[in-house]
């Protein structure tokens, strides 16, 4: 061993070297701990969020119903015996409900008392009875037990959301009503059932009748319009800019502006939609078509930027290979570049879509904040969207809407999870396997 070599070993083997090494390992361990800590905080935040939303939202998926012995009195509903749908539709179905309630509590006397008793049952019972009779006119004149929804106050009481230790004047359910409810429960007439109404109907002033389906369909239609507009336009723009456009001042200017557009606050797009689509072109207010167009404008820069990045990452050697055997520029793009760029393009598009799904502000500007009871049946029908529905319910005074708000958030999150799953599946489907 030469002198120099021994020295070299010494440098890397003495006390100072070992100390340096220890410090390096310590730094590495510290860094890992930071990383783990960061992930832990993020996971904790997520768990707390999901847990609190689920805890307050889950009750909205059940609803208490009361079994009433309904007498479809022919005298009352169809005095002439024509079974004419128009007559049946106009008839007063509140009376059979009140009669059925009265038969359960014959002792109840007086207007005020009877009103309180009727208040146990949802106003929706009347509509549901009408639907039943219209669907089956032969029911007129018969009796049958029917399950009708309880009012939101009674439902909240049964779910334990109303504090009975408060003085009567400070709560929505009176002592009498509580007694009746307990009586009905004792007779086995009250059932807690899965709340199909919440998943299948539109908005309502009555919390127990309000559903998320109208907003969900509104969101779906809106997103469909957004996708149909922003995906082809965005991909075409990206392909043109990356593959065909000459590099000059104009394309630089366009590029800068696309990046700027991506950073524009969403409400500005709402104002644009209001000014251009509604006021200038006279398109209908509150329509998913307009909402979709506004969100498409908002999503477009995201799609373009993601698509350009994906196209840029396709190795130039593939383009040269295709050009070299005589493919035309269009063939190169369609047969080689786009298939390889597709996973990236799809990921970008779905991220844009997920952002569009959660967007509220621009929809407020174009009137999608209206109170819409009907489930929209097309892109021109008045509609609202999931985040706007959440906003509307969160703003409502009835305490029953609080659980609906949380439940609507759960539905929105479910939508997002489904979209992200779809993104992962699509990616795996199109990912280059070699």
């Amino acid at each position, binding site marked *: 061993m030469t002198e120099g070599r021994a020295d070299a070993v010494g440098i890397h083997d003495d006390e100072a070297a070992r100390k340096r090494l220890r410090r390096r390992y310590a730094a590495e361990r510290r860094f890992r701990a930071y990383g783990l800590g960061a992930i832990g905080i993020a996971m904790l935040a997520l768990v707390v969020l999901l847990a609190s939303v689920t805890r307050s939202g889950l009750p909205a998926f059940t609803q208490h119903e009361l079994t009433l012995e309904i007498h479809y009195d022919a005298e009352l509903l169809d005095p002439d015996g024509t079974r004419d749908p128009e007559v049946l539709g106009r008839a007063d179905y509140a009376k059979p409900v009140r009669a059925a309630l009265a038969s359960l509590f014959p002792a109840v006397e007086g207007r005020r008392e009877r009103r309180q008793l009727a208040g146990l049952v949802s106003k929706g019972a009347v509509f549901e009875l009408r639907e039943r009779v219209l669907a089956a006119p032969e029911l007129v004149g018969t009796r049958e037990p029917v399950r009708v929804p309880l009012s939101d106050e009674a439902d909240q009481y049964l779910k334990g959301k109303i504090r009975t230790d408060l003085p009567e004047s400070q709560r929505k359910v009176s002592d009498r009503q509580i007694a009746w409810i307990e009586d009905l429960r004792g007779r086995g007439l009250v059932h807690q059932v899965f709340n199909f109404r919440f998943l299948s109907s539109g908005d309502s002033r009555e919390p127990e009748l309000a559903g998320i389906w109208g907003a969900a369909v509104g969101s779906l239609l809106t997103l469909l319009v957004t996708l149909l507009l922003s995906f082809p336009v965005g991909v075409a723009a990206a392909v043109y800019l990356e593959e065909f456009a*000459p*590099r000059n001042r104009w394309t630089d200017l366009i590029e800068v502006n696309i990046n700027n557009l991506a950073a524009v606050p969403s409400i500005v797009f709402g104002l644009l939609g209001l000014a251009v689509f509604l006021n200038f072109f006279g398109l209908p207010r509150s329509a998913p078509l307009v909402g979709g167009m506004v969100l498409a404008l908002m999503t477009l820069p995201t799609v373009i930027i993601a698509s350009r990045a994906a196209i840029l990452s396709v*190795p130039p*050697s*593939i*383009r*040269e*290979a*295709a*050009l*070299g*055997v*005589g*493919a*035309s*520029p269009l*063939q190169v793009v369609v047969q*080689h570049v786009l298939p*390889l760029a597709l996973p990236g393009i799809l990921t970008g598009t779905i991220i844009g879509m997920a952002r569009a799904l959660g967007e509220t502000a621009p929809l407020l500007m174009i009137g999608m904040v209206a109170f819409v009871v009907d489930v929209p049946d097309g892109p021109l029908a008045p509609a609202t969207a999931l985040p706007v529905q959440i906003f509307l319910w969160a703003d409502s005074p009835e305490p029953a809407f609080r659980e609906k708000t949380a439940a609507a958030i759960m539905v929105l999150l479910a939508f997002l999870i489904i979209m992200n799953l779809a993104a992962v599946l699509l990616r795996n489907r199109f990912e*280059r*396997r*070699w």
Partner: protein
Amino acid sequence: MTAVEPTNATKVRVGDLSVFYGEKQALFGVDLDVPANQVTALIGPSGCGKSTFLRCVNRMNDVIDGCRVTGSILLDGVDVNDRTLDVVQLRARVGMVFQKPNPFPKSVWENVAYGPRIHGIASSHAELDRIVISSLDRAGLLKEVQDRLHEPGTSLSGGQQQRLCIARAIAVSPEVILMDEPCSALDPIATATIEGLIDELREKFTIVIVTHNMQQAARVSQRTAFFHLGEIVEEGETGKIFTNPTDQRTQDYITGRFG
């Protein structure tokens, strides 16, 4: 073109070719005749414009922003930059093999079938299959890939990939094949295979090959052109260039004194 063509007629005649990348000039009035059914080797130090020259012949420079070409490149007497000549057709007649093997991320079969398919050369699937098989055979790859035709072309070894690229190029039945350092990424055995292949291909195709390997140029080519700083310093029969160069710079380069 004409019915009777002497075997060693000029296939490509380049006259006064200059190429500019923006302000920078890469080729300065180059003249070169490429005879048919021979292998012409282009040698010269790095950055002297060999690739640039090659890419002019099938107009691959078209896609480079700011690249300008002047002068004439006659393929069978027709200028390749002529407006009447379609660039897609030109590239079907002048194939190219690149320095780095660049198979498509598709199956071996698809790689070779792609060219004939887009040019509509085969009228049926069976005919296309015949073309694929014979191209792979001529590229000396068939035996190795016979039972993995539907595996990805990118799963082959480097040398196999390069031969796949050659098969892809000859599947379109080009007249000229341009090769830009086709063996630079390969080991000596794969290189020997491809050199043997080039020698066979010469019968049917005109080949222009760029190489940094003097022995390779001497082995496979009949003619050699020595490029230096964007000009052709010397050009002639390979034997003469390597044994008795007239220019001092050629002499220095071949004997390894610079480059």
